């Protein structure tokens, strides 16, 4: 992965400087500090891998750290094993713990997930105290010290920590630029949209927590080797979990640089304050430290890295050409001559399966408590047609979409895709089966480039990252955004964001596309442009179902209308008939207008 290696160049420069510095410093106190900076940076990276990229904040990473630390301590005491062996073992145990914790805890979301994570390390803390491991000291090995990772020269620990950090940084970078990283970022932005874009969110989250736990376990194991003493509070305590958060949030979330910057500033600052002031007034060092955190977060709430990058981006745009979230150099493989002709995936299978409707809805019903959101709705969508679902606000349009792409399970009824009932399938499975969708409320991945945003949608069919890039480039071309591919999504206008969302759905090569109020918030001419694009997609063979609450724009686009009102189908038919239907006018305007409309 040459792009990944190139983007790592700054890190290796940093590592070289740091190693030189570590070799020069002989004071053992400062040596320990230099090691700890790297340890906490590594631990921050472990936390970042789960929480920074998925947005699921974990307050319980001390669980993995502590398991790792006790693995080395107890493994060496009871089985006389070397840390060289025990650190990998700790990584495995940490990973297993991550998986076991993730399976039940991912049932929770948001703040409930965050707070539940607190319980694991604290439960373990008391168990280890009860087991009598209040203070475990690693036995000194005089003869074969190196075989037990015990060195008189503390500089070796710093170099080992640097090697550990480098491994984690390289791994994080590779993940960042793979479909794994894309999936995690997509989950962070909008889990529902990610699921609809064909991402098996639970699978990726479990993989993330397993890896994150493994890294944290290894780091904890190494920490025990460096400090030689392990106590339950020092490895399972709440301050350990908080340390991971602090260095990462301070430095910047969702980038390899964040934990490194945060740790390099905070750890020496707190240690020096401790050494210089701690004996004058005990506690004053933490007051100053706390104030530093508070002031910095008021100045740069998103962390130092992002603040600095945004500043540099404004000041010297040419210098920071690539988004630092790690978009690999675009176009090295995709650019030369990839017009529509070189489509990697035939996006519409026009000739398949004769005239049977691609999608049939039979007696679909869904209630929320007493509210019948959708009642006994049936309609067919012929292959290659454009169906408009319209109705006043609250008519059940979006609920109907959620039933169609698997976000909700209906109380009754069937959804037939190519004649097969797909009720009970997950959104990502339906996406893989050819159902793409966009959302009424846009949630672009603001810090990612347009190309990366769209690539998230392409992974559902792409075998390699290169395939995904090509599919994304093609989808961007089809909606006419090619000139914007390298822009950050956060800089786009509403019209371009709508088109980008459309491209993201297209990148998964859907056979049927569900568009939820794609025209909302657009001016007249902008809407016309989007309509033209949608029409072209239909001509290419993609079946389209589009929701709108206004009719005008849609009349010349759709082949048929389904009008929903109070969750039920009011009228179904071609546009000319539907617009003149008195029941439709009544639903939209109220009874008294029906008379006007008739006359």
């Amino acid at each position: 992965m040459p792009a990944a290696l190139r983007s790592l160049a700054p890190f290796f420069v940093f590592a070289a400087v740091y190693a030189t510095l570590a070799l020069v410093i002989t004071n053992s106190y400062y040596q320990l500090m230099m090691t700890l900076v790297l340890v906490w940076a590594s631990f921050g990276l472990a936390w970042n891998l789960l929480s920074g990229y998925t947005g699921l904040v974990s307050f319980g990473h001390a669980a993995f750290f502590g398991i790792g630390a006790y693995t080395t301590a107890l493994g060496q005491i009871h089985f006389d094993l070397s840390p060289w062996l025990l650190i990998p073992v700790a990584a495995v145990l940490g990973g297993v713990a991550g998986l076991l914790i993730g399976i039940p805890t991912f049932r929770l979301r948001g703040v409930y997930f965050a707070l539940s994570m607190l319980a694991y390390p604290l439960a373990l803390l008391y168990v280890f105290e009860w087991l009598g491991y209040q203070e475990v000291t690693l036995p000194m090995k005089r003869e074969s010290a190196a075989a037990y990772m015990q060195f008189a020269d503390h500089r070796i620990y710093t170099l080992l920590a640097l090697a550990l950090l480098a491994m984690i940084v390289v791994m994080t970078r590779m993940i960042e630029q793979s479909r794994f990283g894309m999936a995690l970022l997509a989950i962070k932005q909008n889990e529902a949209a990610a699921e609809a874009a064909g991402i098996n969110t639970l699978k990726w989250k479990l993989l993330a927590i397993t890896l994150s736990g493994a890294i944290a376990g290894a780091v904890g194991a190494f920490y025990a080797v460096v400090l030689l003493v392990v106590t339950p509070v020092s490895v399972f305590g709440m301050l350990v979990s908080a340390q991971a958060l602090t260095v990462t949030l301070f430095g910047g979330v969702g980038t390899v640089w964040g934990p490194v910057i945060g740790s390099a500033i905070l750890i020496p600052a707190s240690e020096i304050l401790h050494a210089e002031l701690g004996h004058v007034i005990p506690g004053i060092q933490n007051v100053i430290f706390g104030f530093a955190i508070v002031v910095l977060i008021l100045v740069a709430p998103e962390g130092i890295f992002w603040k600095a990058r945004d500043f540099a981006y404004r000041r010297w745009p040419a210098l920071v050409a690539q988004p630092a979230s790690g978009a690999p150099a675009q176009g090295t493989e995709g650019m030369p001559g990839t017009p529509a002709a070189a489509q990697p995936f035939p996006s519409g299978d026009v000739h398949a399966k004769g005239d049977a409707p691609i999608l049939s809805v039979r007696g679909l019903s869904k209630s929320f408590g007493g509210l019948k959101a959708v009642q006994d709705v049936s309609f067919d969508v012929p292959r290659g047609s454009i169906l408009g679902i319209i109705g006043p606000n609250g008519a059940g349009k979006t609920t109907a979409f959620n039933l169609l792409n698997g976000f909700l399970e209906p109380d009754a009824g069937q959804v037939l895709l190519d004649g097969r009932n797909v009720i009970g399938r997950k959104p990502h499975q339906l996406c893989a089966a050819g159902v793409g969708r966009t959302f009424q409320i846009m949630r672009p991945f603001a810090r990612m480039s347009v190309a990366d945003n769209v690539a998230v949608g392409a992974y559902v069919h792409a075998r390699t990252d290169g395939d995904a890039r090509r599919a994304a480039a093609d989808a961007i071309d089809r909606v006419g955004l090619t000139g914007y591919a390298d822009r950050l999504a956060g800089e786009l206008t509403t019209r371009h964001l709508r088109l980008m969302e459309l491209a993201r759905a297209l990148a998964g090569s859907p056979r049927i596309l569900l568009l939820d109020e794609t025209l909302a918030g657009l001016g007249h001419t902008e809407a016309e442009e989007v309509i033209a694009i949608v029409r072209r997609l239909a001509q290419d063979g993609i079946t389209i179902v589009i929701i709108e609450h206004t009719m005008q724009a849609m009349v010349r686009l759709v082949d048929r209308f389904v009008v929903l009102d109070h969750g039920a189908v009011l009228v179904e038919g071609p546009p000319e008939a539907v617009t003149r239907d008195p029941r439709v006018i009544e639903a939209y305007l109220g009874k008294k207008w029906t008379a006007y409309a008739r006359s």
Partner: protein
Amino acid sequence: MTPQLLENFLQALFAGLTVGSIYGLMCVGLALIFGVMRVINFAQGEFMMLGMYAAFYFFTAFGVQAALGPTVGPYVAAILAGPLLFGVGYIIHKALIGRVSGTRAQVEGEGHYAQLILTLGISLIIQSVGLIAFGSILVSVRTPLSSSAWELGPMWGDLVSIFINKSRGIAALISIAVIAALALMIGRSRLGKSLRAAADNPEAATYMGIDVDRAHSVAFALGVGVTAVAGGLLATNYPFHPYVGLEYVIIMYAGVVLGGLGSIIGPFWGGMTIGLVQQLSTLVLPTQLQNTAIFIVFLLIVFFMPQGFFGRVTERT
């Protein structure tokens, strides 16, 4: 069941109910802040610690003991801690937390992280300032009530009698009274309505002429004040030091997650559950594992009833 077992059980049950009421009050304070502002306040344990010391100093140094004596004094001092910490909370929200939350920042995404680390920083400062100001020696609010008890019984033919610690019993009653007053205020008063509106839909509330940022400040201050009263009440039973917040913040979070974050009464039952589990677990487990029992019960409830006792399913899963 032998009379001895029954007595132990009832004893633990009543201890759990009284301690649980105080925990419940603590949780209500934290939940109030989260419910209105959607901010996880890591410094809540430290505010509770400040409440303990406030009660301690009101009692010993500011004449409450001299004026009201050692029996009534501690409770008056605990209640006085409420308004004082209300003021502290209000100022801290205005000066710091309000800058990265509320209408001035988006609550999701990056703003969310800023609030977390900000409250972490604040908790560090309060802890350390506490250490400098109060010293690290364990102190407690002394009242003769904490070493006397009401006796229920003897029952079952003189075999079973239960002792309820007077100090804890009174603290539990005061906790319940404070919660009732708070529920009344939130349900009925104009202020309460503006808090609920700001919690429900900040944007709509703004258009209705409600000052959402002010509502956040009030909610934060109120939450801090309520938890401080709970701290003051605990101070009569448990000795404390400047780092005591860490021990209780966990109980608060667990109780709040159990009870659900949407209501006032939910977190109270969450805290009550924690109190009961803590006390009843001593019947079967060694005391060191008391807290592990809390977390295991907590995780079990969360997994089998992900909606909590009172929360809404959609918010949690």
